[in-house]
């Protein structure tokens, strides 16, 4: 049990720290969003999985039922995190583009071209 939880926590912490590093290594808002959204969501998924494993093993070792409650609530929290993180990242990306921040070192930018030809925002 300790080894499994240790491995899960290790993977989760590795990705969370990588997300932090990506905030400093990438040049503009969009690439930073890539790094933080994916890495922190994935890392939090793994640290929460460690908590679920802990709760279920405690329950099967014969402790009382509140450890199942713990696991269920953690699952609800992870689901909320998955949905809200992805949607929040979309919202920030759209807001950044509308407030005039262009992607650094971009090969091309179809959205800005289309907005120029249509003369208005696309949605």
């Amino acid at each position, binding site marked *: 049990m300790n080894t499994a939880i240790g491995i899960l926590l290790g993977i989760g912490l590795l990705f969370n720290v990588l997300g932090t590093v990506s905030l400093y290594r*990438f040049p503009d808002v969009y690439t930073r969003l*890539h790094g933080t959204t994916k890495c922190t969501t994935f890392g939090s998924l793994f640290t929460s999985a460690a908590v679920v494993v802990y709760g279920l093993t405690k329950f099967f070792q014969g402790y009382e039922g509140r450890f*199942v*409650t713990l696991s269920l609530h953690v699952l609800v929290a992870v689901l909320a995190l998955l949905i809200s993180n*992805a949607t929040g990242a979309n919202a920030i*990306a759209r807001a950044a583009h509308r407030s005039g921040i262009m*992607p650094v070192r971009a090969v091309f930018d*179809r*959205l800005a071209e289309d907005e120029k030809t249509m003369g208005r925002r696309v949605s």
Partner: protein
Amino acid sequence: MVIFVASALTYLLLVWAGGSIEWLEVVIALVFGGLIAVMAKRWNPDMPLRHSWLNPVRLVRFLVYLFGPFLVALVQANLDVAMRVITGKINPGIVRIPTGLASDGALTLLANSITLTPGTLTVDANDESRELYVHWINVTTEEPKASDICGTFPEWARRIAE
């Protein structure tokens, strides 16, 4: 209706503590679910939620999707981003992809999936032509198809939410 069922079930799940549920809690869940559904209807009358979300076949499909192709893509995405964080190699651009999805729920599901899968991030959506604008961290073609960006995800989104 969808909001009513979802909020009532979530409340019951959160108060459930291993044993049986008291009837008072069920009453509270129904009252609050109804209240939330009425408020949502009042503030946003044309909310694009349909009864098809309550279809159990679609929910099972959604779970299969979540633990099958989506999980694989999530793992790939994180290894990919980890390599880019370490090496710092990027070649970004914003591309336009046609989706061909009719309902708003399917488009939202696809946009959220794209955000969490390898090297792509949804920036904006065109409601009339049903196209998505995607920030791609490693551009290889000028005019990509949907399958270049996200594999079979549009198929899954159509089967789950349309």
